[in-house]
């Protein structure tokens, strides 16, 4: 009987110690090359969709890639954006005045941090024609730290430095 108790306990211990899908284990679990490649593809896919949202001037969709949480941090040219709401409002206002937009990335590099987090850097180029026919262009570099929450990769931290050129 003692053996049965021992066996049952060991079995339950093993089952209960499996990592939860919702919460990353406190200790870093081992990342395989396969994991890293998969995560890299996933976050680059998210960046591609985010880029398309800008090209379609879909402000709501673009804002939705950023995590809507008090944890979210956004730095633009050394200034902290106060909140997700402020960022979403800024994107919305921007596209309400734009007639067309072209956004793209180059030299993207992904650093996989854990099974549920990664950082991407890249150079971005942005061009837009405003409704008043004025042209706007900017180029710069960004760091995006992604965290996977509820099976979705979200921008948890965003930092961009750019130069704007009013044409």
């Amino acid at each position, binding site marked *: 009987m003692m053996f049965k108790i021992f066996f049952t306990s060991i079995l339950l211990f093993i089952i*209960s*110690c499996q990592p939860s899908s919702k919460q990353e284990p406190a200790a870093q679990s081992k990342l395989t090359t396969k994991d890293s490649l998969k995560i890299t593809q996933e976050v680059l896919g998210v960046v591609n969709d985010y880029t398309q949202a800008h090209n379609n001037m879909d402000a709501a969709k673009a804002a939705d890639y950023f995590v809507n949480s008090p944890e979210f941090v956004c730095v633009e040219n050394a200034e902290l954006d106060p909140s997700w709401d402020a960022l979403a409002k800024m994107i919305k206002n921007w596209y309400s005045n734009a007639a067309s937009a072209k956004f793209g990335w180059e030299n993207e590099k992904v650093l996989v941090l854990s099974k549920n987090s990664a950082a991407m850097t890249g150079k971005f180029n942005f061009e837009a024609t405003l409704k008043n026919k004025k042209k706007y262009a900017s180029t710069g570099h960004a760091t995006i730290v992604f965290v996977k929450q509820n099976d979705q990769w979200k921008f*948890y931290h965003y930092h961009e430095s750019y130069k704007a050129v009013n044409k």
Partner: protein
Amino acid sequence: MKTKIFIVALLVFLASCTPKQELTQQEKDQIKKEVNSSIQTIFSAWQTMDINKNSHLFLNTSEFTGIGVDGSILNYDEMIKMSKETFGLWSEFKTSIVKIDVKIITSEIAIATVIYRAEAKYKTGQVDNWDSIGSTFVLKKINNEWKVIHFQESSMPPKTVATKK
């Protein structure tokens, strides 16, 4: 006897799964304290222009990426080289941290956002002032030390406030 088996199994289940999945507030506080301390050490190394100390605080790996205020993308060696060259031009460098925000990703990964002011005095006598510089430090805990694995800085161009010695 079945009841005993059930109770023992339940106790093992509860004991084994509860604390391992999520960091406790105490653990979070400890991580924030450690990361804050690492950031203070980095700024101290910058102010004393101690290149050896500075180099030790960043992770020497091919995965490291640094983005400088001028938009340059640097690997570890390039960043250390640029730091050496820049410190070589200055006679004094002062910083004043306005805000540090630490976010914990896992027990071994954290992000520190630092907003600070800076003043660099060149050996030529020129003095440059930055009203605000934003820094993102992605840190990883390796061998019980927090090291910067990714870094980006941004700022508006500095104001030159003096040009003579």
